[in-house]
């Protein structure tokens, strides 16, 4: 089992290869030009048509009253962005997205680390079994899983109330609806962090841990002062991919609560879906989408700044 994860020591996060191989030659091989130009051309054309142009259209559209059903496309100037700043649902969705992101990411990292470290322990048996189980929700398709959880959250015959002896109408209660969506997301995603942290743990240098043990460091001290800093690049990876994912979360909201009760579980991406494909207010939805994209880029840069980039510490 460990062989699979550790067979490529050069790929461990702490020891980074240069991003691109250094320049060695300038010679062009026969046939290279055609292949290269074909592939690069296709790649650029694809992204031009399906990414760059759409972003441009969305940018322009965000300054318009844009409804495809009745064909309106009227210039509004900054009106959509003004509406956005004064829209309580937008702020509610922003706060919800923030709370959702912070809680789920914290839980994902904490649970992932704890479970991975427990599996990693020399005292633990059935390692591959545990790893297999915790990763299972990650591969299960999201829409179907969300329906299972919706049935589990049912107030009368749902599994959660039944087997925990509770009486909460989880998805209809404005206090509990968002935590319910978060709990489902944590359950679905924490296994990914477990597998990543395990891979990180197996790529740690044995001698660092052994030396610390010889020096009389306690289990906690070893974890806090050796394992945790060495896992920093992996933690950053988990955090950044989680930020990208959770700013875009919408399926579980759609299936579990449709944003309700009231606006209690509106997340930004769900709000965009709602504005775009329920009320067909494409212009306003595009404006929110741009705010979301800006937030994505800024948050990614900030987390790189805080944790010191992929390289983390060198060894």
């Amino acid at each position: 089992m460990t062989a699979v994860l550790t067979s490529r020591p050069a790929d461990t996060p702490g020891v980074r290869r240069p991003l691109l191989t250094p320049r060695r030659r300038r010679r062009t091989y026969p046939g290279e030009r055609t292949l290269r130009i074909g592939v690069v051309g296709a790649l650029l054309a694809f992204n031009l048509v399906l990414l760059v142009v759409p972003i441009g259209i969305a940018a322009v559209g965000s300054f318009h009253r844009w409804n495809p059903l009745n064909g309106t496309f009227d210039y509004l100037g900054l009106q959509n962005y003004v509406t956005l700043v004064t829209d309580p649902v937008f702020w509610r969705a922003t706060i919800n997205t923030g709370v959702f992101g912070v809680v789920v990411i914290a839980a994902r990292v904490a649970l992932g680390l704890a479970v991975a470290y427990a599996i990693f322990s020399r005292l633990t048996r059935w390692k591959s079994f545990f790893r297999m189980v915790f990763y299972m929700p990650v591969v299960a398709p999201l829409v179907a899983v969300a329906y299972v959880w919706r049935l589990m959250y049912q107030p009368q015959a749902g599994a959660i109330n039944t087997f925990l002896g509770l009486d909460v109408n989880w998805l209809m209660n404005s206090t509990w609806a968002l935590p319910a969506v978060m709990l489902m997301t944590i359950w679905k995603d924490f296994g990914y962090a477990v597998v990543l942290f395990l891979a990180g743990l197996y790529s740690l240098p044995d001698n660092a841990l052994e030396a610390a043990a010889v020096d009389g460091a306690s289990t906690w001290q070893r974890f806090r002062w050796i394992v945790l800093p060495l896992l920093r690049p992996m933690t950053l990876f988990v955090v950044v991919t989680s930020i990208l994912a959770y700013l875009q979360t919408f399926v579980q909201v759609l299936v579990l609560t449709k944003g309700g009760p009231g606006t209690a579980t509106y997340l930004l991406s769900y709000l965009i879906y709602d504005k775009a494909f329920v009320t067909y207010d494409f212009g306003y939805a595009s404006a929110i989408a741009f705010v979301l994209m800006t937030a994505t880029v800024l948050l990614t840069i900030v987390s790189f700044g805080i944790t010191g980039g992929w390289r983390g510490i060198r060894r």
Partner: protein
Amino acid sequence: MKRRITAVVLHVGLLGAAAVTIFPFVWMLLSAFKSNAEIKALHQTLLPKQWTFENFLKVQDNFDFLRLFGNSVLLSTVITAIVIYTSCLAGFVLAKYEFRGRGLLFGFVLATMMVPWAVTIIPRYTMFSAAGLQGTWASLIIPAAFSGFGIFLMRQSMDGVSDSLLEAARIDGASEIHIFHRIVLPMSTNAISALAIFQFLWVWEDYLWPYLMINSDELQVLAVGLTTFSGRYTTDHGGLFAATTISILPVVAVYVIFQRRFIAGAASAAVKG
């Protein structure tokens, strides 16, 4: 003695967490074999009191889930095959050829991964509708043809293929496309299988785009079919359990059989980042 206690605590904790993790699957599977009356009964049991297969049969009569299932399998396979090939080609070019703007192009590919779906989906929707592609699988396949993640993964993997090996093949007179197909591709099977797994699952669970593009039951995919079913038969919980089982169980079964590959793939995608 202390080690003994630690070991017991570790195992109890892990087993507890494993039970919680696996519980929704078990509950779903067992509930799919309960009658609707039993599912809604006041007194709930984990195991069905009376095992029944009726949910699966009824769901299939009302709603052609086998067709949706077949559609999802076919579509996921086609898109995955295309993405693997385009990712390998682009990964090969980016890893093994030197040309002006290569670093910039690779940076651009990475940047494409950061664009939220919410930004591009509205213009794409208008573009594909205007092009008359709505209601065809082309609308699902075209936007998935190139994958930033796939190119990134394959470039990282192919960067490790030794240049001298390629040089040797060139001296033997192998063409570039031959080298790509006969040397580089076979050497990248680990990365390819990682990409295949991810890509297949992404297509399998993709919801919004097929929901927007496909309007006929004949061409629809399983993820959208589930929501249609749930909206149409709101009280048929037994049917919903059966339908979610049809959607989840095959994926989980394949995962359990190939779990090592799945997990190694998941880890490699990160470790190479």
